[in-house]
């Protein structure tokens, strides 16, 4: 078992990792930037090493400084958390070179899954469904044949595209040719190139992801799904498990695909396979996240596992003591992300000092946070300051608990999105679980039209 873990991160995830280590009797080393001297993770760890000035590029992203801190403190493992260096295969490689246990998958696996085209190829080989798409096409007639193969609706994209230029969605064959020609004309005008691609257009999809755990002995289990469809500008806001859109049958079907994907790349540790789920139950591999995720607590609550501890155990070379049949999902968990930002001013980040703080508690309520009364949120990093996670027997109860807890969360001195979250969770469609990844955008449009 590893004896001393250096946590190469900050904020609530660093605190979360330090707590897991404390419970396991593992010593902890925090690294911090000059802006994080007073941060909770810095104070909570057994040791703390300053690794540079506030900008992440000179501190939390500086591989050589983090490696040096590991050497100086004699830590034998590094936990990268999420963000920063967590998906940087070169960092993982470097840890391997220096004989440091990197708590995550092997560098080569990270590299493979980090490259979109390579990941897609691997998944096709492994028989995991990906969004059907074409090689480059130039001619409308030929493209129309491809579109039939791919299945409508079809999105037509310029190879050099960007900013929506040279992009059209054709919902049926009748309109395909005119859509294709318009898109191609636009592409030629905007990029001077008329190479086009076709892809199946996934309408109103949900973002469904599967958590997996894989040990170094080839055992892989999935821990069910998380529905992360409530997102703004591709930033997740509220996540839950299980998803109302997933039947038991579909769960085992998608779960199998996730396990297959993990096995195909020889994955080890905790990972997440992201899918787009279409109305009709078709699902497509999007990408694999080779790290712990922000929303991991919802899975922890429905499975009863501690994912950070599982990561540490797997990295220490222990075998998973359970199989797929032992994994049971119990109740319903929802997480929402509390950010220091102002939703009324285009979600502008609002760093500053927290003058007063009251956090809710009670049965089925969990707060993962990096804040305390008097703490100053620095302006340099991600604005997420806390996560509120609730658990109850049913989704209805969980939503009620979430709203109740949000209603008694008090963070004074800085702006937060708490009221905004409160509003969303009160929305009728949200309560019914009737949403897709366009939900927040739709809410915004409704508001504008009022």
């Amino acid at each position: 078992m590893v004896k001393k873990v250096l946590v190469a991160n900050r904020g609530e995830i660093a605190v979360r990792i330090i707590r897991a280590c404390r419970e396991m009797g593992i010593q902890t080393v925090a690294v911090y930037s000059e802006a994080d001297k007073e941060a909770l993770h810095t104070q909570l760890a057994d040791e703390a090493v300053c690794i540079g000035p506030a900008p992440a590029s000179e501190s939390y992203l500086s591989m050589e400084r983090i490696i040096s801190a590991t050497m100086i403190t004699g830590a034998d493992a590094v936990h990268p958390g999420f963000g920063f260096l967590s998906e940087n295969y070169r960092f993982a490689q470097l840890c391997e070179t220096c004989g440091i246990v990197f708590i995550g998958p092997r560098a080569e696996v990270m590299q493979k899954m980090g490259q979109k085209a390579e990941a897609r190829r691997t998944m096709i080989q492994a028989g995991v469904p990906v969004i059907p798409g074409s090689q480059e096409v130039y001619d409308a007639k030929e493209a129309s044949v491809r579109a039939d193969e791919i299945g409508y609706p079809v999105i037509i994209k310029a190879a050099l595209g960007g900013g929506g230029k040279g992009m059209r969605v054709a919902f049926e064959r009748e309109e395909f040719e005119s859509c294709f020609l318009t898109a191609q004309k636009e592409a030629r005008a905007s990029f001077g190139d008329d190479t086009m691609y076709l892809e199946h257009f996934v309408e109103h999809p949900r973002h469904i992801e599967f958590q997996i755990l894989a040990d170094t002995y080839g055992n892989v289990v999935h821990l069910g799904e998380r529905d992360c469809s409530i997102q703004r500008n591709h930033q997740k806001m509220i996540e839950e498990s299980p998803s109302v859109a997933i039947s038991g049958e579909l769960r085992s079907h998608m779960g199998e695909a996730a396990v297959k994907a993990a096995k195909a790349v020889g994955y080890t540790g905790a990972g997440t396979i992201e899918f787009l789920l279409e109305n009709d139950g078709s699902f497509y591999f999007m990408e694999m996240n080779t790290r712990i995720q922000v929303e991991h607590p919802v899975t922890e609550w429905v499975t009863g596992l501690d994912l950070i501890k599982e990561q540490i155990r797997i990295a220490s070379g222990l075998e998973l003591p359970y199989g797929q049949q032992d994994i049971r999902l119990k109740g319903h968990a929802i997480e929402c992300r509390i950010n220091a930002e102002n939703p009324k001013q285009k979600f502008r980040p609002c760093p500053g000092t927290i003058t007063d703080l009251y956090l809710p508690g009670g049965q089925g309520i969990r707060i993962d946070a990096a804040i305390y009364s008097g703490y100053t949120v620095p302006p340099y990093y991600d604005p997420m300051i806390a996560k509120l996670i609730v658990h109850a027997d049913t989704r209805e109860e969980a939503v009620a608990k979430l709203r109740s807890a949000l209603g008694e969360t008090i963070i004074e001195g800085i702006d937060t999105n708490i009221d905004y979250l409160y509003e969303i969770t009160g929305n009728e469609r949200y309560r019914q679980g009737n949403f897709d990844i366009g939900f927040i955008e739709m809410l915004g449009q409704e508001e504008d039209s009022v």
Partner: protein
Amino acid sequence: MKLKGMFKKTCYEPQKSTSGHGTANQKPEVPDGLLKKCNICKAAIFSEEVKNGHYICPKCHGYFRMDAYRRIEMIVDAGSFEEWDKGIASGNPLHYKGYEEKLDTLREKTGLDEAVITGEAKICGSRAVIGVCDGRFLMASMGRVVGEKITRAVERAVEKRLPVILFACSGGARMQEGIVSLMQMVKTSAALKRHSEAGLLFISVLTDPTTGGVTASFAMLGDVILAEPNALIGFAGPRVIEQTIGQKLPKGFQRSEFLLEHGFLDAIVGREEEREVLSGLLKLHEPSERQGCEKDEAERAAYSVKEIDAWERVQISRQKDRPVGRDYIDGLFTDFVELHGDRYYKDDTAVIGGIAKFHGRPVTVIAQAKGRDVKENVKRNFGMPSPEGYRKALRLMKQAEKFNRPVFCFVDTPGAFCGLEAEERGQGEAIARNLFEMSDLKVPVLSVVIGEGGSGGALAMAVADEVWMLENAVYSILSPEGFAAILWKDSKRAREAAGIMKLTSGDLKKLGIIEKIIPEPEVLTINNFKELTRELEYRMDEFLDRYESVDKETLTARRYERFRAM
């Protein structure tokens, strides 16, 4: 709330040995050579990253010194380098004690036989003789072997008619070889003179540090002199200077940027672009034919010359949004490489010059440069050249003569800069020298007045086979304001003066001072500039048709007669 010391720490209890594999039992450690320290910013950096990144610190972008073979690898086409004269013995002319042993030790340690490597290679397909100094070997000081290897390489370049590229890096002369070392300065310089006389190109690339006898010989003799950023370049070392004059030297003294400003470098080139820049320069010096431009007769002469009052033309010629010299360079030529400096004192920003291609044919382009806005105008001294500007122009024209490139000059100046410093450095001499040399330049010269042709300041770039003017350009002995002030003691009578001075293109054509008028659109700006440059391009192409085939004697004789008749 202050948290310091509030939390209880983990009480670590060794757990019972758990079965499991994968955990390293040995303590983590950083393998030797994985990290290195940057000498400049002191940061720890990955050796691998430095190696793959042209030996530039990824943190502070400071340059590490490179050894010769690595540099060759970085610059030349893979596998194209053929080394010459490996293993020449140096001897010990002063019988300096321990010298030979020292050389032996260094040979063993560095794997080099001496402080320079020479040979032939290709850079992006272009053949060149290349020599690279290696600072690990007695600070690449120039002893007999270094001098000999460079001289032989240059001599072979003459035989094979190849360009030479030398990467300098040196502490100077080699003390252990005394006066024999000093003579290497002459030997290398003399060889380069023969190389130059043979009409061949020499590019010198100065790297950190280039000092002493190397600076005072081959390093400073390039047709083109490039330097890496922030390299120390000088004759006397900074410490010696400080001790001699008893003063602290200013920051940046004797660095590349300082030399560029003082006119000794053509350009500072970052390591990432060195190969590309060198290849570009080599290509500009390879024989290439002009591809005649396809003329669309329907598009020609879109404008006709308009009836406008002379004073109005003066106003138009000075208009702020009128295209400036740089616009003509960008609009008429391709592959432009700007070359800087007069090699005496300064790089004058009021004159832009360099090599470019006109329809595939290498040419020399020189433009008097006004700015496009106030800020640039301040930088370019409102297009008023200092003596250094004229000397830079002349240097580039002599270079054009050596490489048989036609010269295109674009004239646009209120006049030569009128100031204390300009007089101190010989404004009059500089202008005179240009008239003197240009009258006999053995390549075709075309000057186009594009805006203001202010007196001697304009003339110093208008001793040409033909002089053309844009319709609204003016060319005169001085400004109408000045004319009125001198003759009538009233500068307000400028309009009247303009009327009688014969400064418009029409007047000058009638007087036989210029050959052609290029008609302009109603208001010439950068927006309708393209139509004008197209016409100009056609006419320049015709100019080359007329002059390129003329032999040198006839060319200079005609030019002589052109001015003789005035």
